[in-house]
């Protein structure tokens, strides 16, 4: 009995009206899906595992936008800025300190830089009373500016220590992520890297579920729904927005570190307009008020894009663009919340029917 309530208390931290999937049925399905995801590399080659790892990295990036835009109502085209900053920083530090210690130091430094950039940009915007579409424009302009800036760093004078920024050609030779003490160290590549990304994705997901379902999460959603009212209740909405924006920047930064380590390479295309669009597409299609939706949409859309690219088709961007358009017009809440709602109502109907035919009430809890 006590063990049961302990699980319930633990579960309670991750459940609430702000996330879908609060039923026992959901968690069982989640556990099965997770087990499949963990087992996947056992059955495929290193290459395929590495391929899927990239989608998991993108999913972490998508989560960062979901929390900033979907939950707090701040549309940011700039998640790739923090992503790219962290990736470049990871490259610069590891190319200068070429050891396991250097790599282990580079991870927090890179995430820290991304966080700091997000904090600074957010401070200027939110404390300068910039709101709504202007935030979107400023974040968009910052990606364009960074792309222009990084693209012209080809000359040898653009170097930080031993790391050449490389302009359009990018920065090659970034090492894999490695952890260890002294002589014993583990480098994460192939399947091992996939597992690392999966663990970090799951941790980010749970962390954000706890955040959105906690007290602060309610304040975030309140800011999204009605800023004036939340302010009347005594919250400093600038502070709420800045906090969320900074947290989002940190998560995007984590994804950026993984990205740079994944390809052992980073170049200015991470700041390009096309790449800046992708997080917006993933999150909108999946359902921006749903963390799970962001993850699922990212993995499936990226898989689809890659399949089209393999067949040599140039239509991937057209299809993805039109899909985004259709979702905004027809299903503004996104696909995953829509499917979830349909599934829940079908489940309820089925339960009602069982009730009527058996003539007794079931004690099964109804998922939200």
């Amino acid at each position, binding site marked *: 009995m006590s063990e049961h309530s302990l699980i319930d208390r633990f579960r309670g931290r991750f459940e609430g009206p702000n996330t879908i999937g609060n039923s026992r049925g959901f968690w069982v399905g989640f556990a099965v899906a997770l087990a499949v995801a963990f087992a996947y590399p056992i059955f495929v080659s290193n290459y395929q595992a590495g391929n899927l790892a990239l989608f998991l990295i993108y999913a972490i990036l998508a989560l960062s936008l979901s929390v900033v835009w979907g939950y707090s109502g701040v549309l940011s085209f700039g998640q790739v800025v923090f992503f790219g900053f962290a990736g470049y920083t990871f490259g610069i530090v590891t190319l200068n300190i070429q050891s396991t210690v250097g790599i282990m130091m580079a991870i927090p430094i890179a995430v820290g830089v991304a966080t700091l950039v997000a904090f600074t940009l957010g401070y200027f915007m939110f404390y300068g009373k910039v709101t*709504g579409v*202007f935030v979107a424009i400023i974040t968009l302009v910052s990606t364009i*500016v960074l792309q222009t800036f990084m693209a012209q760093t080809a000359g040898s004078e653009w170097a930080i220590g031993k790391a050449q920024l490389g302009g359009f050609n990018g920065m090659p030779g970034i090492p894999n992520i490695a952890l260890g003490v002294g002589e014993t160290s583990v480098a994460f590549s192939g399947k091992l890297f996939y597992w690392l990304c999966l663990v970090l994705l799951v941790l980010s997901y749970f962390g954000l579920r706890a955040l959105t379902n906690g007290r602060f999460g309610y304040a975030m959603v309140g800011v999204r729904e009605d800023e004036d009212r939340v302010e009347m209740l005594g919250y400093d909405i600038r502070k709420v927005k800045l906090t969320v924006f900074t947290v989002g920047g940190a998560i995007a930064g984590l994804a950026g570190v993984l990205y740079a380590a994944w390809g052992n390479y980073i170049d200015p295309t991470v700041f390009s307009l*096309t790449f800046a669009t992708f997080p917006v597409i993933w999150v909108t299609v999946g359902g921006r008020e749903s963390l799970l939706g962001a993850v699922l949409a990212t993995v499936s859309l990226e898989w689809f894009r890659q399949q089209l690219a393999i067949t040599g088709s140039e239509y991937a961007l057209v299809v*993805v663009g039109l899909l985004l*358009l259709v979702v*905004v017009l027809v299903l503004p809440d996104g696909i995953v919340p829509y499917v979830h709602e349909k599934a829940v109502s079908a489940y309820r109907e089925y339960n009602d029917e069982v009730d009527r035919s058996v003539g007794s009430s079931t004690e099964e809890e109804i998922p939200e």
Partner: protein
Amino acid sequence: MVNGVNLFFQFLDSFGFIVLSAIGLAIIFGMMGVINLAHGELIMIGAYGTTLSFNAGAPLLLAMAVGVISAAAAGLVIERTIVKRLYQRPLDSMVATWALGLAMTQMVRIIFGNSLSGIGLPLGAIQYGQFSYSMYRTLLSVVALVVLLGAYVVFTRTEFGIRARATIQDDDTARAMGIDTDRMYTATFVIGCALAGLTGALYAPALAVVPGMGSSFLVEAFVAVVTGGTSVLLGTTLAAGVLGTANAFFTNLYGTFIGQVAMLIVAILILRFLPTGLSGVVETVRGQMERES
């Protein structure tokens, strides 16, 4: 050393570029509250319409008219099918027009390839002393002024402009007074798109005509709209003046890249310290003067 005449031509060039980049976006935003993120793609359509018809043998001015009309037609379709449904959701209209822009760029790339053979820069150069500046690019700043003036006359001195502004101010009352507000929104959007097309048509001889060319106008357009403030025509003019000065001065001293950085720094300072934008400051000052007199 700073050469005054050089600096002046540089300023005219920057000023014209900023005004022409921003004007279509600014009118749609100021009148409708919609940020049209397909703005760059409409400029691209204007440039493609111009270049394709020029290459097919049309004289340059006729080719430019084709460019403007194709962008206006595209704008009409976009408004009727997409933007119309999203008036109450400004962020969603951004995402939707953005999605459209992405698909349009890629479609153009698939149909016409990665570049078109360009139109040579017409009209030659102005010579002064040992320097020279492109006559055509200088002329563009005059066109920019004409466009600003034209927009001012249309929106303040004509029946249409008054109806359009009435719709913006209070669309319920405007409708009660017998104005077809839906048509006003459509017309405003199409005008904005036609102006974007004009920008594309005008810069088609001066820039490389490629599918992604729209994005090279976006920074100037957005920065001008954001720093200009709520009164769009005044705001765009002031923003182009201030930002153009910063850009021209630093470009002249240290090259185009530093020129752009200087422009952005000025924009950030304006945003941080003048939250109502440049036109907001002018209006506050004007209000104070009226109260004192």
